[in-house]
């Protein structure tokens, strides 16, 4: 049988975002695959060199439209380290709450997207329904549903409202019940397991060698989470568990993310209880000098920023390491030999966001 190159993208239901996956198929089996990026390149790193430090925060928000707060926060954290700035304790807790809420919405977006990928549109609508609750909470805290522009160099933009804890408790109780619904249509349905189990198996060695991070790495069995291993804010003071699965297939990555959602709920509740009173912001210098490098755990993996300041209003150089850009490298290895339909299960479980991949 002759082999056939098929373009899955740039406009294709499989691509969540604007990119192209070229696959070489022999009948229904994939012989080779090649991700093509660059359709959404905006030159964010270069743009940053022309802006003041505060103007970069909204720009960092737009790196990933699904978990924008994580990127803005990682940027602020890096610049604060360059400035040797100690931010107030309350601001740290507020950041953790917002970050975990963002992780919840991001994982809900992933769960909602994996439904249509495997042909289960009902899951999409279920998840959209609950994601709305978390977006409402995020809006209460930050003032916006997406591109929140919430972290500031030296703290956060605003405090939480008075009835926030009450609302969170109500919504989390509801969410715990609804998670069972998701498991009913996914995990407990043999048709879903048929699609996900044993598909796209990624070994730990390969995952580490290719630079895969985040839930995808933890799904392969490596217990690595920047919140634990390079702690920032107050994650080391809170009690939570890293979700790890050893199988390394699509279902393992699915379980890791499902577990992380419940862990996020746990972290938010603890942070709300432990949060002290006090100021939420400190004054930051306008023209810092020096360089710094920080890494944080985004909802998709490890985000790291490298900032060099030369005493000017804007950074001399800014480098972003986005998790999915590195994960894309492993695609040809993952996709070789699988069925055409498996591309969906694999790409869905990897959780692609092109905004951050194609900076």
């Amino acid at each position, binding site marked *: 049988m002759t082999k056939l190159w*098929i373009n899955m993208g740039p406009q294709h239901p499989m691509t969540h975002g604007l990119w192209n996956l070229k696959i070489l198929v022999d009948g229904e089996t994939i012989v080779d695959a090649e991700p093509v990026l660059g359709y959404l390149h905006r030159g964010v790193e270069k743009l940053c060199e022309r802006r003041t430090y505060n103007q970069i925060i909204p720009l960092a928000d737009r790196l990933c439209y699904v978990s924008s707060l994580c990127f803005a926060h990682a940027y602020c954290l890096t610049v604060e380290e360059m400035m040797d700035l100690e931010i107030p304790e309350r601001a740290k807790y507020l950041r953790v709450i917002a970050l975990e809420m963002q992780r919840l919405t991001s994982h809900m977006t992933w769960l909602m997207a994996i439904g249509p990928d495997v042909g*289960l549109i009902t899951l999409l609508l279920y998840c959209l329904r609950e994601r709305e609750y978390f977006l409402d909470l995020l809006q209460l805290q930050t003032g916006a549903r997406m591109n929140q522009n919430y972290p500031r160099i030296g703290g956060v933009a605003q405090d939480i409202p008075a009835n926030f804890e009450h609302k969170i408790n109500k919504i989390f109780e509801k969410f715990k019940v609804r998670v069972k619904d998701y498991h009913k249509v996914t995990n407990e349905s043999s048709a879903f397991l048929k699609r996900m189990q044993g598909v796209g198996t990624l070994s730990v060695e390969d995952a580490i060698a290719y630079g895969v991070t985040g839930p995808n790495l933890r799904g392969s069995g490596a217990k690595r989470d920047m919140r634990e291993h390079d702690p920032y804010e107050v994650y080391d003071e809170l009690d939570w568990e890293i979700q790890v699965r050893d199988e390394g297939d699509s279902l393992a990555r699915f379980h890791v993310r499902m577990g992380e959602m419940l862990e996020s709920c746990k972290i938010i509740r603890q942070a709300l209880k432990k949060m002290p009173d006090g100021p939420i912001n400190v004054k930051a210098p306008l023209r810092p000098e020096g360089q710094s490098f920080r890494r944080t755990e985004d909802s998709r993996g490890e985000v790291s920023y490298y900032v060099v300041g030369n005493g000017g209003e804007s950074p001399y150089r800014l480098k972003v390491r986005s998790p999915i850009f590195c994960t894309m490298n492993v695609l040809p290895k993952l996709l070789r030999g699988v069925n055409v339909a498996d591309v969906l299960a694999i790409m869905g479980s990897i959780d692609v966001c092109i905004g951050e991949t194609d900076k």
Partner: protein
Amino acid sequence: MSGLFDLGGWSREISAFVSGILAWIADLLGGWIPWFHDVANWFRSDAVIEFWGFAIAVLIMLVFAMINLLVVLWMERKLYGRLQDRRGVMVPHPWKKIHKGTGFLQNMADGIKLVMKESITPRNADKSMFHAAPAIIFISSVMAYAAIPLSTTFVLADLELGLIFIVAMFALSPLAVLIAGWASGNKYTLIGGMRGAAQMLAYEIPLLLCIAGVAIMAGSLNPMEVVAAQQRTSVLGVENWYFIPQFIGFVVFMVAILAELEKLPFDIPEAESELVEGWLTEITDIRFGLIFMSKWMKGWAAAALVVLLFFGGWSGPFFPQEVWFMIKTYIVFAFFVWIAWILPRIRIDQILKIGWYELVPLSFATILIAVALKFLSHFGMGWF
């Protein structure tokens, strides 16, 4: 048996009336051109009147099929809307002051929209085959309605091999899927068409074997006879619907008919997330609409087939036969909708594996069961 479409009855009078009008017009024209008198005589002949009778009968069935299509489409959209915690279609109608809108007219609006769309033929397409495929699909699914009886009287063609005819009409559409997939000149459609062909081979066989099991029990391939047999052979005064003795066959048939309809757990020929829209990718405008319509027409026909074979057709107390038949088919169709919107799509190799390794052996088992029950009943030992 005097049926609704019996040519000796009222439909003959209508057709004679239509023929009479045409003959009168021809006679008027005959005033100028004498040759038209011969035309008028031809209109009055028995053969022409009989032809009008057929035409009227077909028209009635076609109108029924179209109205039923609207109901079934609307039902599916409403049902899976509810399943997904939505309200489904809710487009307001002209009398929106009385009621906020059930969305029943949404399908009409969609149809009108599709008529107005641009008709695109791809440059690489094999033009004649590309245009033939939607026609084949639509015609075959409308023709299946000819042999479906709604009651002992409401049937267009009381065929001796009616079940075979209906399944044959179903089996035509995968051929058109393959034609459309190949003729579009697109890689996605090609893969979709090939998948359609593979799926047909795997599911047509268990489907036919299950029908054979029922036919052995009923002793006929005529849907009328099958229903009559279910009413006749009763256990303890309860009608013996074949889904009890033929339970395995019933389950296999349900799975196979879902695959035949390309409904969601088995809609791999048009897997929308991996193949864009599969074999339908290049088809636009009302040709897409025709295929879309025929999908739901076949959906109801499949539900009707399930009811005829396994749920005693139109038998039921109090209500007229047609009402019972429609209630049963809508319930079966609702079951199809429920299955389709709660299960993810299954992969092509898994589908073929289910078809060849599980359904075909099970359908042979149904034939064995049918033969055994028939054998026992000859000695007065069987209930069936």
